[in-house]
């Protein structure tokens, strides 16, 4: 790959005696949609957590935009332009959708506490500029009608969408989605697929997502990485991965029994 946005080189992660990731290498190219799939416990979420700085690998390197950043903490990773959503929705339930999305802008906000409190001068201009970006995302994800609704009152599918909005508010270069369509019905999934595709098209964002629905994976991803027991067992375009014997074994349970 000529110009990978992110390179994960020979990463291993250990939880006590459990080897969650075993020298896994993945490259993500600019502008692509990469799907990470694999049976339960294969290490998919661990891989996302390593990339976003929640875990640090005990061996291996992570290179983002050409610079090593293996040991960064989550806020620093976020500041570099990597945003994520969570497998279980993690919104501020009592806050409105608008405020939730505004929190996605926090890292971009500068200014003194005092000016913010007075809502005066630069603080006011800043707030308006951030609000304009957030409104663009609200329009993009078609959630105008719930702008002022407390996030906790929304149905699950919409909460997922709000979470995506918050991640987008950080204007990330790389977006990590942990099971964005889990627990959704067919119609919600179709909407979400369209949004994911539109995100790359509209904002040029690179996306890595974990997904269990194979239909979704085959439809929207440019490339698929398959993990099983902490090891990468396949990496390639969806059509190719679908026919891969090692993948079939992992999914049909030959290796599990």
């Amino acid at each position, binding site marked *: 790959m000529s110009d990978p946005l992110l390179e994960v080189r020979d990463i291993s992660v250990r939880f006590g005696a459990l080897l969650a990731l075993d020298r896994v290498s993945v490259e993500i190219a600019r502008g692509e949609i990469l799907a990470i799939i694999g049976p339960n416990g294969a290490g998919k979420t661990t891989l996302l957590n390593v990339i976003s700085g929640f875990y640090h690998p005990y061996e291996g390197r992570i290179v983002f935009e050409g610079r090593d950043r293996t040991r960064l903490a989550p806020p620093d990773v976020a500041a570099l332009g990597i945003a994520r959503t969570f497998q279980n929705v993690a919104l501020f339930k009592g806050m409105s959708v608008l405020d939730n999305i505004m929190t996605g802008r926090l890292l971009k906000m500068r200014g003194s506490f005092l000016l913010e409190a007075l809502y005066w001068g630069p603080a006011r201009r800043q707030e308006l500029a951030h*609000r*304009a970006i957030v*409104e*663009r995302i*609200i*329009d*993009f994800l*078609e959630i*105008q*009608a719930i*702008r002022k609704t407390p996030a906790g009152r929304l149905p699950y599918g919409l909460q997922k969408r709000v979470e995506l909005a918050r991640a987008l508010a950080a204007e990330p270069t790389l977006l990590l989605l942990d099971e964005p369509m889990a627990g959704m019905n067919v119609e919600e999934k179709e909407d979400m697929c*369209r949004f994911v*595709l*539109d995100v790359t*098209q*509209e904002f040029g964002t690179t996306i890595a997502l974990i997904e269990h629905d194979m239909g979704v994976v085959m439809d929207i991803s440019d490339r698929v990485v398959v993990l099983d027991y902490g090891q990468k067992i396949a990496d390639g375009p969806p059509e190719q991965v679908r026919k891969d014997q090692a993948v079939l074994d992992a999914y049909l349970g030959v290796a599990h029994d």
Partner: protein
Amino acid sequence: MDAHGVAALDPALDTFPKLVRRNAERIPGKVAIREKDYGIWQSYTWRDYYEQARLIALGLASLGFRRGDKLVIVGDNRPQLYWAVMATQALGGVPVPVYQDSVEKEMEFVVDHAEARFAVVEDQEQVDKLLLVMNACPRLERVIYDDARGMRAYAAPSLMGLAELQEAGKKFEVGHPTYLDEEMARGRADDVAIICYTSGTTGMPKGAMLSHRNLLVTARNAAAFDGVGPDEEILSYLPMAWVGDHVFSYAQAIALGFTINCPESAATVLHDLKEIGPTYFFAPPRIWENILTTVMVRIEDCAWPKRRLVQLFLGLAQEMERARLDRRPVPAWRRLLYPLGRLLVYAPLRDNLGMRRVRRAYTAGEAIGPEIFVFFRALGINVKQIYGMTEASVFLTIQKDGDVRLDTAGTPIPGVELRISSEGEVLYRSPGVFQGYYKNDEATRQTREDGWVRSGDAGFLDADGHLRIIDRAKDVTRLADGTLFAPKYLENKLKFSPFVKEAVCIGQDRPWVAALVNIDLTAVGNWAERRNIAYTSYTDLSQKPEVYDLIAREVARVNRSLTEDAVLRGAQIRKFLILHKELDPDDEEITRTRKVRRGHVARKYAALIDALYGDRDHVQVEAQVTYEDGRTGTIRAAVSIREVAP
């Protein structure tokens, strides 16, 4: 103005594009259109309106648009689409708005029948449909879209962005500086201004052609009759393909120079209504019903002291309003309590609904349930009934202020003459009478009768000259024993219940009346939750015995109120069932404007109807449903039948 209310039109101001240009000159800085976008109301002045539409027109001209060409318009109410209407008319073309939720098949019929060469649409959703339609309609050359989102990868050469079109227009103007003014000058009052395809409760849609004169004279006459002025604010939220929106948001807005407001999305309409606070508002009965249902549900959710207070004062105001409508005296103690009610309940509620500034609100399209009508009037909202139709450029009658009645549609506006045929059908003559159905002379001929136009509605003029509509002429029938039976009358009474979304009554040539009922999922769902009745789906909820009890009480209420009507008391509902699925325009059971297609429903649910007149207490059904993407599926269910004690 002559005896028929027809003013001679000034040839310099006899088409809508000419009037927009006049507005841009006389009131250039006044806001013509607002649209809520990115959370903020963005304003366009009359100068912007004319300039934007002008560039669209020039862009179309650069693509070879000729006089008489048809241009299809599809999308939610957007300033860009209203500009496209004017642009098309400026070039001597005819805009053909199409319902934005039409499925591909319906859209194909209109595009093909209208022989459209161009289309201006809102976004990807509509582009996708039109690209498919294009395969079957080779005449369609260009699809122009406003919102490019999701279409970066689209390579169809027939596609073009609206901004790109306007750029082309600017270039075209350099080479042809006087082109547009010349084309506009060639426009005449009697040119076809628009073709509105009527959704039609029967058969294929028909394209009613309305001229500039039809629309302009009718819009002005109606405004003069009811005191509509240049300072109105309206919310443009009803489909652009429906003639009502065209008359309110386009014809009247341009003729009078008032401001229209486009909501942010279909889901935010009620919220946007509150922000705008229109002074002039139109809603068909189903919207009034929806608003009423929302209010009722919220009242039910209140803590009991608040709920009792609200119910007490609402009851009081409704009693007073009824008395006023019946010309009965209002007891003094009620009149004394009313100001308190206004302070505590009516004014806050009106404000909350966004109707504080409403000077007049219209309802039409179908008869409104009297209870719904009284409810809103009791709050102090000046809701009035009007009667009209596409073929008459909407307005035929309006209830005048101070002369509002429960069961009439008001008196004819200037220029309109009404007559009742020997069969009881309403006939009319007016300056708004349409030019005919496009390419359907046979259907046009059927609407004419000795120089009058047939409305298709049965009705009569009362002693005070008020028009009272009973039902569709073909729907007013008799039971087997000859008792008069007006299904819509019964259905409207049923639909006043917040729990009943839709109802179809059957009875022609039958021994008694039976009803198919659609429950309202929001209201009944809420009701069930508060009573700890668990349900999984619409179908499941609809067949709960408790829900049947609930609806049985509503049916009994309708039957009771029917005993007060001397003519219709014989037609009470004996048996009913609750349908296992909602009537849906995608299944062709109701039209896009939510009118029941009786014939289709009768055929589709023949087995259910037979069962209603049999002696079983339930029936097994299988129904075809069409999903929004066009696929079909089957629902199976056991539907219960309930008899109501007479």
